[in-house]
């Protein structure tokens, strides 16, 4: 009897403590470790949103940068080595899903409970003085002489390269893909005419479009987009039938806490996150930077990341650029 009572008491105290931990969350400051460098796209987005989340939380989120490793693995290993109590957030982007196949770490992306802020949509542009005025012009020329038109889209296996591949698959056109180390050198090459076509995000291209150094042909998302000083860029989905089977492949910049963190912490953070995305400051920042807000959390966000993980991992594998076979990691084929 005594034993049962003490057991019950123990269970009760545990429950109360657990509850009080949960009810108290957050009782101290939260650390957000951005796995990419200070001032980069992920860093900026996470800092802007975290700053607004602070207004809806009793304590603060302090943003730090933990860079290095392979595809941000150093920061993710750091975040994952901390207790699953919701006090450590990682600032991540879609490129982090390749950390496992690149040998940075051995975990699937499902170890995170993600919050997706969003990303900037990709578009296809050409050199300003090239003869191609519309996407149809370009596709007709590319089909007429396959692989004769040179295209830049950051490195092999990058999100922009995946967009270019998807566009090729959706239209049947074939380009000669020239890899560049990052978006900026590829865009420069398109300005000089070294390559004709470039696929990068609107945030990265906007200044060059405004300076008339590049001519935008089509957005690789469902919606048309209007850029001040450039005009309306039509969606490729209108001119190419059936493109929605392959696109959009969007950037997914956001945050994550360990998936095994307490539900209470997930709930508190989700609420603050959703409220932060509704603030004028975040909305204004997104508009200024051509950033599309997603706002996905929980299962929805996990599904997005799982899809990206599968797509990225298997594309890299097919390009021969993956170090680890995605099958051995249990990543399903897209």
């Amino acid at each position, binding site marked *: 009897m005594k034993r049962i009572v003490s057991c019950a008491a123990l269970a009760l105290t545990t429950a109360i403590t657990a509850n009080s931990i949960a009810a108290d969350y957050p009782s101290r400051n939260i650390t957000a470790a951005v796995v990419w*460098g*200070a*001032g*980069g796209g992920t*860093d*900026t987005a996470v*800092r802007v949103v975290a700053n607004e989340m602070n207004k809806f939380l009793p304590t603060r989120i302090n*943003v*730090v*940068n933990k860079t*290095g490793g*392979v595809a941000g693995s*150093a920061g993710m290993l750091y975040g994952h080595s901390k207790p699953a109590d919701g006090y450590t957030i990682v600032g991540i982007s879609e490129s982090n899903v390749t950390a496992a196949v690149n*040998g940075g770490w051995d975990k699937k992306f499902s170890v995170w409970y993600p919050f997706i802020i969003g990303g900037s949509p990709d578009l296809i542009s050409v050199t300003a003085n090239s003869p191609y005025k519309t996407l149809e012009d370009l596709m007709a020329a590319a089909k007429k002489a396959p692989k004769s038109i*040179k295209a830049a889209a950051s*490195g*092999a*296996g990058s999100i922009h390269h995946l967009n270019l591949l998807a566009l090729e698959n959706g239209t049947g056109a074939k380009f000669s893909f*020239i*890899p*560049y*180390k990052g978006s*900026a*050198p590829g*865009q*420069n*090459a398109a*300005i*000089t005419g*070294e*390559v004709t076509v470039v696929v990068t995000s609107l945030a990265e291209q*906007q*200044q*060059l479009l*405004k*300076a008339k*150094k590049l001519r935008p042909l089509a957005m690789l998302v469902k919606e048309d987009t209007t850029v001040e*000083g450039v005009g309306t860029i039509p969606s490729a989905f209108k001119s190419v039938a059936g493109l929605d089977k392959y696109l959009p492949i969007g950037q997914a910049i956001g945050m994550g806490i360990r998936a095994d963190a307490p539900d209470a912490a997930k709930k508190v953070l989700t609420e603050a996150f959703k409220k932060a995305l509704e603030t004028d400051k975040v909305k204004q*920042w997104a508009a*200024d*930077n051509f950033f599309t807000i997603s706002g996905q959390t929980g299962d929805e966000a996990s599904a997005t990341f799982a899809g990206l993980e599968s797509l990225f991992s298997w594309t890299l594998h097919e*390009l*021969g*650029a993956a*170090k680890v076979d995605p099958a051995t990691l249990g990543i399903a084929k897209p």
Partner: protein
Amino acid sequence: MAFFTNLGTFFQTIGGMLTDPYTVLLLLGSSFLGIIFGALPGLTATLGVALLTTLTYSMDLQTALIALISMYVGAVYGGSYPSILINIPGTAAAAATALDGYPMAQRGDGGKALGLTTTASFIGTVIGMIALIAFAPLIADAALQFTSYEFFLLAFFGIIISGTLTSDDLVYKGWIAGLLGLALSTIGRDQLQSYPRFTFGIPELEGGIEVVPVLIGAFAIPQIIKSMRDRLVLGKAQPIKRILPEFMTIVKNFKHIVRSALIGVGIGAVPGVGEDIAGWVSYGTTKNSHPHPENFGKGEPAGIIASETANNACIGGALIPLVTLGIPGSPPAVMLLGALMLHGLNPGPLVVITQPNFLYQLCAIMALASLAMWINGMFLTKHVIKVLRVPATVFLPIVTVLSVVGSYALGLSIFNLFLMVPVGIIAYLLGEMDYPISPLVIGVILGPMADENLRRALMISEGSLMGFIERPVSILLLLAILLTVCSQIPAWKRMTNQIKAKVFKRKAS
């Protein structure tokens, strides 16, 4: 009229900043921190600006820029201290400074060398700033004509010229050292197809050879071994007699200063190429156009002035494509772009319309940053020269520890030490056989750029080499490389001397 309004903004910004004690403190503090960053082997301007970016998030844009630009200017300048004093460049950008700075320090002119560096860096920064304010759109357009061909040739030119310059009679050895550096740089996954090369299954080699441990290993370790072996006295520390440095030397070398600054601005404006190459190219050009090229490498003040003016003028150059198109011109400018975006400012063609005062504010900040650097420098040179009075038995272990820490601190990786030590020992042995070391390091730094761009150029031309002679900038670079190589061939030297003699004779008669 608009010019005067803008000039008003420029001075208004300067005045506003100077009346706020907090700003002045921040200016001098960041500049000082930058010099320390530059002077410590392993810490670079890029790293300094990156670390400071995180700290400036809560500041307003102008205050943040003051801190970041001061840091950048200070760090590019600070690299020259250890170059001159102990022959270990603090940053790759200051490697050319060591060629003449260290001999000067050894013969007791260390104070003079540091003074010249300070003023040359100051003038370089200011000329860079003037170029930024006056010719930004023009230079940006020219710099954007660089394609893969030109990038390859520029990188190759940098390696060849550093091989040529480091020693006159050993030019083949300089090139061999450069090629060794190039070979080292091919280790790791290649940039275009991510195919692992020479990695021997070692995961740490996948990302390629890190520059910082190679830089520290190649320069610091041989210097430490040599100093211990020969019981070398570091240099003679003579008290600096005058605070204002050698105005006569500056005036005498004014031609070189202007040329070096223009080279710095031009190279800075080309995206992705920065202070490292600027110092070498300017040093080479100055040497070739100097009436006494044989003095270079033996403590010629013009040598220091050339590299230090150019690497600081590079800053203004690097900001030109950043401000006009949002394309950073050098690695630290990449960090600066990030910081600007963090503060909600997207530099680009529209910045002139949306933030008309930005360019002038930026230039005002640069002017103040260079002034802060100069003040700090003048204060510091009087004291750092005393380092030479510290007995080598005390000083060298400290340098050793700093070198090890500097290598390790980069990514907190113990593997960097495994890389640094063998590179250092090989560099020492090469040095014993009279191979210069700088070309090896420059090879490692510029190798990836040369490799990636050559292969991409051939990929684009589908294997044809015609691209190299079809483009104007490319032809110029190619000619520069050919001339550099030919000028070292004895037969060619004899021939040019004969021609010169003949022409001279005819003139005389």
